[in-house]
């Protein structure tokens, strides 16, 4: 019984950490990609 309830606790922490890491990767990736797109758009503007 104790080990089965413990598995729910462990699963909760694993899910939380996956979500936090996922958000970290997603948000930082979005910043990097958006900055790259901005820089290429500005470069395109100068070249036109």
């Amino acid at each position, binding site marked *: 019984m104790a080990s089965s309830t413990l598995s729910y606790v462990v699963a909760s922490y694993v*899910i939380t950490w996956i979500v936090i890491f996922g*958000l970290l990767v997603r948000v930082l990736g979005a910043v990097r990609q958006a900055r790259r797109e901005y820089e290429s*758009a500005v470069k*395109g503007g100068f070249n036109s």
Partner: protein
Amino acid sequence: MTNDRSTFAPPTAGWWPLFGWVSFLTFVFTQVYAVLTSPADRMMGHMQKMMYVHVPAAWVTFFAFGIVLLASVAFLWTEDERQDLLAASAAEIGAVFCALTLILGMFWGRPTWGVWWSWDARLTSTLVLFLIFVGYLALRSFVEDPQRRGQWSAAVGILGAINVPIVWMSVKWWRTLHQLQSDPRSLEPVYLRGLLLNFLAFTLLTVFFIRRRYEAARYERAAEHASQAAALGGYNG
């Protein structure tokens, strides 16, 4: 709409990467601290440790949707597009934490109540809150005109945030399955310390996520503006 140069000026990361590191290390520390220092509860045993992830996740959901409310009102008031981008960033992060709250609640409910889901007032109102913000994000992807998108999503954002006090009060108004909010005075200090530290860590992380997502949104908007300006320049030239 306030489409001055500052709206389209790309933001700077400034000290936010450092803030991110501090937030993340605080999160790691508070999670380990709470798990290692809290003894098994007399009633719930080790299930009590779920409190350090489920309750802070619910808190930052409310916090993020509070930012949506303030930024949406500010957008309708000032028509400054930056407020709209801030509201959208907070809605995105808030929706993720709302989903996490629901999932963690299910993992707590299964061994406690014997079911993964119950149409209890707290669970149902939280699900409604989540669906409103999924709708908010879907709406933003369907509307192209920035001004109309901002106005419509501000209306939905305000409507969604009004649901937050309903979710909070649901356990008092409708006494169903979900327990009442724990009163900090009724919590043993050893549990309260871990909970408050995790509140802090989750809040820092949420501020960081929202700020960086907002930064990305500002870059996206600045890139659109630069492309439009280049196209017009090319057309005129």
